[in-house]
C-alpha cells in the first residue's frame, strides 16, 4: 500500500517535463512532433522500406495517377511521374535530401557558430563591437541571397548548396549565442561563480550554457526551417540538387513541364515540403511558448 503523502509538497516539474506538458496540451503540436519523428525515421530507414529504386523507371507505368483514381495502379500508391518512377519511393528518398542533410548541416553550423559566439562573448572591447556591427549587417542580408553569392563562386550542385547554407547559418548562431551570454553575464549567479574564482571554461560550460540552452534550441528550429526552405528553393532554381536527385525542390522544378497533365507530380513533393516546414515551425513555436511560460513563473 502506497504511503499517503501527508505533507503538502510543491513539486516543480523539470524543464523537459514542462515542455512535454506543453506538447501534450496542444494536439496539433504533438502531431507535428510525431511527423518530424516519422520523417527522421524515413531519413534513416527509408531505403529499406521502398519497393523500387529512386531512379528506377518502370516503363509500363508512365504518368499513372494515384492508386485511388480510376486509372491508378495499386503497385504505385501515389502514382508515377512522366518517366515512370514511383512517387512514394522518390518522396521517401527525398526526405533524406530535403530534411536529413539540412538537419546535419544545421547541427554542424550550430556547433561552429555557438563555439565562436561563446568566444566572442567572452572577449570585450573594439574587436567585439566591430564584430557586432559586422554581424548585424550580415544578418540583415537574406540567407538565400548569401547562399546565392556562395554558389555563384563555387558553382551549382547539392554539396555546394549545403556548404553555402551551412556557412550562411553560422553567423546567426554566433549572433544569438553572443547576445544570450551578454544578457546573462550581469546576473547575480554569474557574479557569484566569478567570485568563486572559476575558470572561464568552467564558467562557459557549467554556468552559462545550461541557462542559454533554451535560446539555442529555439534558434536551432529556426535554422532548420530556414535550411530546409533554402535547400528546396535552391533545388527549385536548379542551383542546388541536380536533376535525377529526388530532392523535393528539384522534383518540383522538374514537374513544371508536366504540371498540367499530371498535377500529382507537382502536388506531392510540395505537400511533403509544406508538412515538414509546418511541423518544424510548429514544434519551434511550441518550444518557444513553453520556455516563455517557464520564464514567467
Amino acid at each position, binding site marked *: 500500500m502506497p504511503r499517503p503523502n501527508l505533507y503538502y509538497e510543491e513539486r516543480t516539474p523539470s524543464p523537459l517535463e514542462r515542455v512535454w506538458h506543453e506538447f501534450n496540451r496542444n494536439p496539433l503540436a504533438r502531431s507535428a512532433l510525431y511527423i518530424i519523428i516519422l520523417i527522421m525515421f524515413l531519413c534513416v530507414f527509408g531505403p529499406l522500406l521502398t519497393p523500387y529504386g529512386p531512379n528506377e523507371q518502370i516503363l509500363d507505368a508512365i504518368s499513372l495517377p494515384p492508386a485511388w483514381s480510376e486509372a491508378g495502379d495499386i503497385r504505385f500508391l501515389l502514382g508515377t511521374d512522366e518517366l515512370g518512377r514511383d512517387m512514394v519511393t522518390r518522396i521517401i528518398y527525398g526526405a533524406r535530401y530535403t530534411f536529413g542533410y539540412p538537419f546535419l548541416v544545421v547541427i554542424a553550423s550550430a556547433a561552429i557558430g555557438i563555439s565562436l559566439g561563446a568566444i566572442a562573448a567572452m572577449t570585450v572591447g573594439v574587436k567585439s563591437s566591430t564584430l557586432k556591427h559586422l554581424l548585424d549587417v550580415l544578418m540583415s542580408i537574406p540567407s538565400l541571397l548569401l547562399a546565392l553569392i556562395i554558389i*555563384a563562386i563555387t558553382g551549382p550542385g547539392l554539396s555546394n548548396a549545403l556548404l553555402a547554407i551551412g556557412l550562411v547559418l553560422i553567423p546567426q548562431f554566433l549572433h544569438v549565442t553572443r547576445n544570450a551570454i551578454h544578457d546573462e553575464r550581469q546576473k547575480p549567479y554569474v557574479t557569484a561563480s566569478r567570485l568563486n574564482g572559476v575558470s572561464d571554461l568552467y564558467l562557459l560550460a557549467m554556468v552559462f550554457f545550461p541557462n542559454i540552452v533554451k535560446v539555442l534550441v529555439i534558434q536551432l528550429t529556426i535554422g532548420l526551417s530556414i535550411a530546409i526552405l533554402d535547400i528546396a528553393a535552391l533545388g527549385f532554381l536548379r542551383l542546388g540538387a541536380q536533376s535525377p536527385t529526388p530532392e523535393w525542390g528539384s522534383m518540383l522544378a522538374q514537374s513544371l513541364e508536366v504540371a498540367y497533365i499530371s498535377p500529382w507530380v507537382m502536388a506531392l513533393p510540395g505537400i511533403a515540403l509544406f508538412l515538414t516546414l509546418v511541423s518544424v515551425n510548429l514544434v519551434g513555436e511550441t518550444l518557444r511558448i513553453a520556455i516563455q511560460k517557464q520564464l514567467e513563473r
Partner: protein
Amino acid sequence: MRIYLLRQLALLIITLFLLTIFAFCLSYWFPGNPITNSSGIFSDDTVRFAEAAAARGYDANIFVQYWHYLGHLFRGDWGISLLDADPVFEQLQLRFGATLEIAVLAMLIALVPGIALGVLAALNFRKPIDHTILSMSLSGYSIPVFWFAQIAILLVAVRWEMLPIAGQINPLFNIEPITGSILLDIFISQPDNMSLALRSAVRHITLPVLVLSVMPMMLLIRLTRSSMLDVLDKNYITSAYAKGLSTRSVIWSHAIPNAMQNVIRELGSLLSLLITNTMIIEVIFSWPGIGSWLIRSIYERDYPVIQGGLLLIAALILCVHVALNLFHAWRYPQVRKDLNASS
C-alpha cells in the same frame, strides 16, 4: 537624433565600402580571368581586352585596380554581359524598376490585412478567432513560395483561365521601357490605347503580386499580434480604460500606435525575406526583374551580371535597413534614448 543619424550614415557608408571591396574581390574569386569577369570582354577580343585591362589598371597593383573599379562603378560602367553583351548597368536600371514594382505593391497589399488581422487576433486572445488566425498564419508562412505560385498558376490561370502567367504585359503593346516598372511606363509613354494597355498590365501583375504578398502578410499578423499583446498588458492601457475612454479609442489611439513600434523594428527582416521571395517569383512568372536575371546568370556563369546584381540587391537591402532604423528612431524617441544610453 543628430548623433544617431550621423552614426547610422557613417555605418552605412562603411558597409557600402566593404560591399564594394567584396564585389571587387568577386572578380578574382570567380573562375577565369578577372578582367573578363569584371568587364565582360573575352580575352580573344584582343584589342578591346587590352583596352579594358588598361582602363581598369590591371597592370598595376591591386589597390590601383580597386581604385579604377570604383571609378567605373560610379561612372555607371559596370561591364557588359558575357552572354548577350548588354551593358549591365543600363539593364539593371530597367530591371530594378520591375523588381521594385512588384515588391512594393506586394508589401502594400500585405500591410493592411496583416495588421488588421493581427490586431483582431490580439483582441480575441485565446479565443477561436485567435486560434484560427494563428494557425492560418503559421501554415501561410510555411508554404514554400515556389510551390504556392505553381498551385496558383495551375488553378487561376490554367483551370479557370482568368489571368495570364508570364511577363509584364501582352507583347502586342509596344511600351518603351523607361523606368522598368510597367505601370509607370504606360503613364509616361501615353500610348494610343492606354486603357487597354493598363488593363493588360494589371492583369499580368495581379497574380505575382498576390502570391508574393502572402508571406509578408502572415508574418505581419504574427508580429502585430505579439506586440499588441505586449502593449495591451501595459499600465497606460489600463489607465486609459480607467479614464473612461471607449474601447475603440483606446485601441485606435493608445494601443495600435505603440504596438507599431515593434512591428516597424522587425519590418527590416521582413523586407529581406520579401526580396528573396521576389527573386523566386520573378523566375516563375518570367518577370523581367533583377532576381530572374541574377539567377539565370548564376547558371550561365555570366560573371559581370552576378557581380553587379549582387551589389545592387545587397546595397538596396542595406539602405532600406538604415532608412527603417532612422525612421524608427525618429518616430519613437524612447528608442533613441535607449540607443544613446547604451552606446
